[in-house]
């Protein structure tokens, strides 16, 4: 079903930055469409509970914020296309998406890409076994779906999400068997001065850590999950201390692991925008100016997509990107633009201090990359192991797209979203080069698998105009 509905601006992603930018544009009278794969606004950070859930009385803070976003979208009568997965974006701009029944195409003069991030997970032997999930997946289970994943759980990786998930598992009646953190306790103490610049998040952090401390949860610093395998009644988790080499095995039901966030560049890579590598901002990101304009005229990046600065900054980044759009399209004057953006830029500078501290806690230690065994599957979609990647490199594949052609890495349904970062790290380490030199995976459509029945739609075969075959 092709539907050529036209908009002034299409916002992809209904998280906090997508919503704030959509509202900013709608206030100036622009025709706005906001598209999201989920059934409601909120993005991942304020992920909405399923529509059938009926609130009793008290609510989680995240659910309250999500309600506010929903109300604002309604108040400003912004058109929404929830449950729509974007699979292709082409210049012009044409945005193609599919839902449960069909595909659709919209057109717009400008694009605001507010697709946020997905989780960075550094592979280990056994990370593919069912029962190993992302730490961010775990927060969604807890805070959006209101389940605990299992009676017992091991939390691994690094950064504040470890503490948040531990807090909610305990609060909701589950048991945390261990927390395994690649950072040291000193890293955490060093970060406090920067983290305190964001008092709200800092207070939350103290609350989480206090609970973990009270419950006397075994805490392994400077450590990682080296290996996991299934045993009767659960998963054997082999913990390795990256500093002193000591190992320990524990048995649990689920492992939730995450090492921070990776900006989503699917759409900007597809549009052939310029990208740069910035480890502190999450890896490969679309190159933007200080008002979040990408290298392509008419394409703006709101939220964490062009560098991670966190949920609190997301709303302001949405305002910044949309203000740039409004100014470029002459909906606001230079004076109004300067006035609007001056305060936002100042606020964002403050958030950067916090973001940098979080980045340090979420950094990927060299030893973590070195600890990956050769037999470990790196590309989950195509079952490509570390040794297969290194063999391709030995044979002459010196760039990530060559590695892709050589091995099929990144050619599966996830299009490299899960393995791109780790592969770059492994190869850069092996060749002792900068990740910039390896390049990034060229964006290819479809960015999400499209069910063919949606593309075909309903038609009567007899009614199709048949073209005669060309003469031989």
């Amino acid at each position, binding site marked *: 079903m092709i539907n050529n509905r036209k908009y002034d601006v299409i916002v992809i992603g209904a998280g906090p930055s997508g919503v704030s930018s959509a509202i900013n544009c709608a206030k100036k009278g622009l025709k706005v469409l906001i598209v999201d794969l989920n059934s409601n606004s909120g993005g991942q950070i304020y992920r909405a509970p399923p529509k059938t859930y009926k609130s009793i009385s*008290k609510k989680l803070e995240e659910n309250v914020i999500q309600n506010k976003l929903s109300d604002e979208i309604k108040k400003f009568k912004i058109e929404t296309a929830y449950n729509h997965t974007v699979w292709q974006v082409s210049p012009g701009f044409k945005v193609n998406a599919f839902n449960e029944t069909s595909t659709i195409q919209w057109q717009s003069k400008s694009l605001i890409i507010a697709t946020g991030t997905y989780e960075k997970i550094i592979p280990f032997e056994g990370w593919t076994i069912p029962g190993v999930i992302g730490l961010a997946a775990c927060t969604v289970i807890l805070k959006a779906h209101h389940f605990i994943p299992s009676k017992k759980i091991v939390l691994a990786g690094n950064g504040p999400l470890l503490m948040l998930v531990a807090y909610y598992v305990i609060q909701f009646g589950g048991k945390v068997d261990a927390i395994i953190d690649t950072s040291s306790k000193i890293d955490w103490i060093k970060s406090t001065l920067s983290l305190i610049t964001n008092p709200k998040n800092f207070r939350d952090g103290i609350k989480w850590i206090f609970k973990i401390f009270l419950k006397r949860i075994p805490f392994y610093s400077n450590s990682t999950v080296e290996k996991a395998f299934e045993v009767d009644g659960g998963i054997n988790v082999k913990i390795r201390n990256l500093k002193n080499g000591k190992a320990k095995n524990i048995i649990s039901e689920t492992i939730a692991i995450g090492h921070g966030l990776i900006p989503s560049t699917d759409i900007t890579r597809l549009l052939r925008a310029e990208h740069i590598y910035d480890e502190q901002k999450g890896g490969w990101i679309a190159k933007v100016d200080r008002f979040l304009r990408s290298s392509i005229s008419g394409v703006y990046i709101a939220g964490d997509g062009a560098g991670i600065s966190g949920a609190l900054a997301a709303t302001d980044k949405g305002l910044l990107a949309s203000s740039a759009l409004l100014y470029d399209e002459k909906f606001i004057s230079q004076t109004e633009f300067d006035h609007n953006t001056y305060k936002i830029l100042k606020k964002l500078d403050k958030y950067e201090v916090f973001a940098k501290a979080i980045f340090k806690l979420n950094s990927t230690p060299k030893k973590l990359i070195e600890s990956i065994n050769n037999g470990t599957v790196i590309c989950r979609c195509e079952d490509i192991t570390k040794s297969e990647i290194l063999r391709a490199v030995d044979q002459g594949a010196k760039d990530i797209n060559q590695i892709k052609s050589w091995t099929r890495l990144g050619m599966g349904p996830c299009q490299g*979203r899960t393995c791109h970062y780790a592969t770059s790290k492994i190869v850069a380490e092996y060749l002792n080069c900068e990740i910039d030199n390896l390049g990034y995976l060229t964006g290819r459509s479809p960015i999400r698998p499209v069910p063919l029945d949606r593309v075909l739609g309903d038609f009567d075969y007899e009614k199709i105009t048949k073209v005669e075959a060309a003469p031989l």
Partner: protein
Amino acid sequence: MDLRVSNYFDRSNKVNINVNNKKIEAYEGECLAVVLFVNNIKKLRLSPKKRQSRGMFCLMGSCQECVVLIDDKKVISCNVFIKDGMKIKVGDFDK
């Protein structure tokens, strides 16, 4: 042990779904991937080359690991909400 947290929300109607011809109880509108996971149905499909079991992983529509068959169609189960009588196949369906 029911792993549902009911401090904040009431679920909708109790319904049955069918997973590999086994009846599973759930509430209408709950996320399929999560319901399977907490019912210890974690092995959702096999990987293409090594034929290793795979399951729910990212829960946000990125990794595509949680694919199952619903009414003989492949879908990512993290974006499916429970409906009464849903027929689901997991495991070695991808031949």
